């Protein structure tokens, strides 16, 4: 498919979704059809309307108030993503190569992954204060596990023949990591990173939502408290655009690093 066509299709999807939202939140179902009163399929009190959301977003950007909050959230997200991903990769590799460590800590890692982060928020605030770091920590606890489990598996998936060859070529454990395990696990790493980008942002926003003085999560919380649904949706819209941009960056790096892979086989039915 050509790029312009693809773009057109993508835009079409957005248009259809927004149109549905618009109609649902502005056109009432006449009384008697689904209930005694005339009702909106998507009650604008809870779903706002696309126009209100866009207008709101526009206003926020025009007046400039959102830049500061966006900046805070962006910083938290990027930090959470980088720290979580690097941590996940390092510990993942370490576990994969140290079978005893892995076996001993296995249940603890899994249990840790199951702790509800929302409950941890006060503890992070205690240790890290209310600045960005407690939000980063929350994001890290999400990103870390996603990356960790994939790296751990990715390292185990190295082709035994390639591994045997590399070892016979005289590679030390460190060289194996660098020349064999790491490139081989890269597809796994990147697959997890695509998930992790979103979760880094979620962590940051949830952290802000639970206690902070700035950031998109803070704004969303304020908006929720005053029934400002347009504000909530506008915040989410900005978040979404945001993640698409970060993810595009990840994909660009991925394509560069994985240039060696065979292009998908031309498949004809």
């Amino acid at each position: 498919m050509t790029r312009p066509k693809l773009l057109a299709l993508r835009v079409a999807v957005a248009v259809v979704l927004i149109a549905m939202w618009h109609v649902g939140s502005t056109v009432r179902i006449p009384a008697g059809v689904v209930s005694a009163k005339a009702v909106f399929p998507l009650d604008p009190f809870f779903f706002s309307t696309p126009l209100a959301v866009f207008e709101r977003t526009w206003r926020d950007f025009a007046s400039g108030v959102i830049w500061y909050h966006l900046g805070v959230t962006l910083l938290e997200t990027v930090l959470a993503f980088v720290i979580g991903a690097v941590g996940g990769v390092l510990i993942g590799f370490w576990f994969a190569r140290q079978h005893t460590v892995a076996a001993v800590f296995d249940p603890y890692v899994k249990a840790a992954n199951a702790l509800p982060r929302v409950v941890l928020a006060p503890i992070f605030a205690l240790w890290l204060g209310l600045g960005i770091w407690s939000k980063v920590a929350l994001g890290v606890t999400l990103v870390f596990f996603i990356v960790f489990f994939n790296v751990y598996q990715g390292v185990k998936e190295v082709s035994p023949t390639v591994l045997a060859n590399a070892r016979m070529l005289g590679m030390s454990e460190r060289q194996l990591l660098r020349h064999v395990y790491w490139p081989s696990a890269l597809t796994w790493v990147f697959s997890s990173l695509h998930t992790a980008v979103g979760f880094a942002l979620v962590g940051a926003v949830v952290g802000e939502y639970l206690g902070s003085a700035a950031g998109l999560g803070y704004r969303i919380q304020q908006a929720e408290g005053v029934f400002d649904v347009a504000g909530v949706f506008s915040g989410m819209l900005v978040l979404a655009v945001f993640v698409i941009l970060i993810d595009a960056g990840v994909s660009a790096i991925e394509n560069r690093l994985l240039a060696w892979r065979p292009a998908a086989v031309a498949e004809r039915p």
Partner: protein
Amino acid sequence: AGAQQAEMPKLTLGVGGKTLLYYLPLTIAERNGYFKDEGLTVTINDFGGGAKSLQALIGSSVDVVTGAYEHTIRMQAKGQSIVSVIELGRYPGIVLAVRKERADTYKTIADLKGAKIGVTAPGSSTNFFVDFLLAKNGLKPQDVSFVGVGGGLSAVAQMTHGQIDAISNLDPVITKLESDGAITVLADSRTEEGNARIFGGTNPAAVLYMKSDFVAANPVTTQKLVNAFYRALKWLHAATPEDVARVVPEDYLLGDRALYVAAVKASKPTYSVTGIVSDAGMKNALGMLTAFDPELAGAAIDLARTFDGRFVARATEATK
């Protein structure tokens, strides 16, 4: 009082839901620049609930908190020394209401047996408020089921969509539901007579509290904070709801100025006039807590240590 330098000109304040009208004095003090006038830079951290802002205080993440008075009592039982320095709300402002469609079934509080009641969060003061009312009417908390619905949009959503039978919540949620004609009020602690009926007097709600150490180490800063809040209370007392609507950020207007004005009007009596927690109020608060919390029932609470009236007294003095 402005002459003396504050020990801590920059400080952080925690609040659990700044947009709630419960905390309106804070917004007024902030918007009217009262902190600045006192030479203070106050960073306001908003938390997902009163409990979280208190935890932040204990963990030293914030310096002072605007929160419920009952926390000072609870913390005393836990061996934490927390003291309130000015009363912001004299009535809790909590309202228990039932959904219109179920008003026939749940005519009085005593009928609530088996009902699903929405509270801001399980274990919060809205929850205790219901517990208290149930007890007064011969029911036990186990006779109903509580659902945490928060204090914003989702509370409205749950009520209008019939997920809960009754709701114990604060403004603006209550006024919104009232204006939609969705609820019938059973108990209203926003008014004087309501409080008289429920508690037999006042029952301090929002206060400014902090660690006792903080007060000892930063008397000037504390005084300046109290001054600012005291001014806000005075201003509120004199202002019309329309004045309030002009002062708060536009976002706070619920997208519906009239609704907001109505909500402020309904809440106005709850704001403290003197800034002083009365002895009767303290007893009422303690009585309510000990009724349900076994941990508190056994503890020896020195109510005198929960409120330090010196600062309000000085602020009153200064403004006279």
